[in-house]
């Protein structure tokens, strides 16, 4: 049953050093506030899982919090590369980063299999693709009816998943809408789930019967953090801060500049600062 907590408590109760953690969001609804809280609390030795590690994983990796990343596209969406992740992979700075790399189809299927309680996902994939050579977690099975060889990857089962969503009702049910991405699967695949929301409403009366709702008992903690997905966006609340993504490319290109930015914008800030960051983006949503 979901408990409403301050974000600092929601993170400290549910994330541990050494965890396999997913901070999921597919361009939309990226849980930046939760990731920044994890950075402030200084967790170590994390395995970070995400289809599209972006700024927040670049930040966590740059701060030396991760031993390993499991991903399918490590880019700054619409801009280019992730420079802190590159520095870790190419130069082992600030520490070496093991990578387990998949395709989007594989990761999506692997989360789906995790949500479905299966040990592995089966799909038609990786045909002729070289990732199958370098990633030992890509295997195959043979269809017992047609003999076709299909790809198999292990189900993803994070210790904890963090997502950002539009709203919770006061029973703790969570509504996600718009580009829903992989959030439902990432929550249901995880042992624990933490959700930041823009707001809490009395109930979801009038909402579409087939809207994506995570029942209260599938979520462990909810923290109310308006603006919590900035510089990503929250459909119906505020627009994407495209300038911040462009700006990140410069910040992350230099180790010193990165540390200074993190100090000023993450370490010395709190979850309460997110609302102000999206003020100018609300009209555009």
């Amino acid at each position, binding site marked *: 049953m979901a408990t409403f907590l301050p974000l600092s408590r929601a993170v400290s109760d549910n994330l541990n050093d050494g965890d396999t953690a997913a901070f999921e969001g*597919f*361009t*939309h609804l990226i849980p930046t506030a939760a990731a920044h809280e994890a950075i402030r609390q200084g967790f170590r030795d994390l395995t970070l899982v995400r*289809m*599209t590690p972006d700024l927040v994983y670049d930040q966590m990796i740059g701060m030396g919090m991760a031993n390993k990343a499991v*991903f*399918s*596209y*490590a*880019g700054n*969406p*619409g*801009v*280019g*590369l992730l420079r802190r*992740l*590159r520095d870790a*992979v*190419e130069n082992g700075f600030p520490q070496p980063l093991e990578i387990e*790399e998949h*395709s*989007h*189809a594989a990761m*999506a*299927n692997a*989360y*789906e299999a995790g949500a479905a309680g299966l040990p592995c996902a089966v*799909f*038609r*994939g*990786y*045909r*002729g*693709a*070289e*990732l199958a050579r*370098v990633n030992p977690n890509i295997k195959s099975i043979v269809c017992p009816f047609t003999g*076709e*060889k299909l790809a198999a990857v292990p189900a993803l089962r994070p210790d904890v998943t963090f997502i950002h969503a539009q709203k919770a009702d006061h029973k703790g049910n969570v509504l996600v809408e*718009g*580009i*829903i*991405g*992989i959030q*439902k*699967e990432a929550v249901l695949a995880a042992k624990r789930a933490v959700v930041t929301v823009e707001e809490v409403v009395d109930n979801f009366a009038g909402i579409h019967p087939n809207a*994506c709702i995570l029942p209260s008992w599938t979520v462990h903690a909810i923290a109310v953090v308006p603006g919590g997905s900035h510089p990503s*966006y929250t*459909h119906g609340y505020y*627009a*994407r801060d*495209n*300038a911040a*993504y*462009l*700006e990140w490319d410069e910040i992350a290109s230099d180790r010193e500049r990165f540390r200074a930015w993190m100090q000023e914008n993450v370490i010395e800030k709190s979850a309460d600062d997110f609302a102000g960051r999206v003020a*100018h*983006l609300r009209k*555009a*949503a």
Partner: protein
Amino acid sequence: MSDFTPNEMMTIAASRALRSDDVCFVGIGAPSAACNVARLTHAPDITLIYESGTIGTAPDVLPLSIGDGELCETAVTTVSVPEMFRYWLQGGRVTIGFLGAAQLDKFGNINTTVIGDYAHPKTRLPGGGGAPEIATSSQQVYITMAQSKRGMVEKIDFFTSFGHGDGGDHRKRLGIDTAGPTLLITDLAIWKPDPETREFTVVSLHPGATRETVQETCGWTVKFAERLEETPAPTELELKTLRDLQARTKAAHAGTAKKGKAA
């Protein structure tokens, strides 16, 4: 007709290859511009799918990411990412998968993963994302990229996604029953695979491009078709549509920037 840049020619040539009954899996950048120019000109009913889950989207401005809000707001429907990859891509419903490339070889094999050795890369690129399955589950693959010797190479460093492999019937031998890369559109030319060898062959030169400029910006020895055509220059309508789209895009994205910050 106005002047136009090679990049504009590339986008417009790509847009012409699309039809109203196509279902396109769209990547960001040149593919996205080409698909939307097609939609705004000769292919109004084209279905554009972005891998974030938006189906039948009709954005007024080009998205900066594959998951921009307007893609969802203008879509016929928005589905989850697992459904996107299972029902819509793997289900064989995508007629055209549109891919870009960091490195491309003459058989349409693509690398967007690493430059150098995988375990000890010289440059770590973003990786494949949707490409490995777009390349094999789409009915056909179109590739767009600006030509350069660094990008169009004899041998790619990593097979992120499979084109025609070593050429010939290599796809068939791997049990891949889709057509694979059937069109390459660069800033200088239109290329199609040879029916036998599957090697990309220049079939049309864009206005102003020559055999020499194509060869100078390509890392393999280029084959040219016996009858080489000239790509028709962009029409007024095509060029205006593309430029208006880009102007709207620039204005919209600047609009979300804070005063005093660079957008």
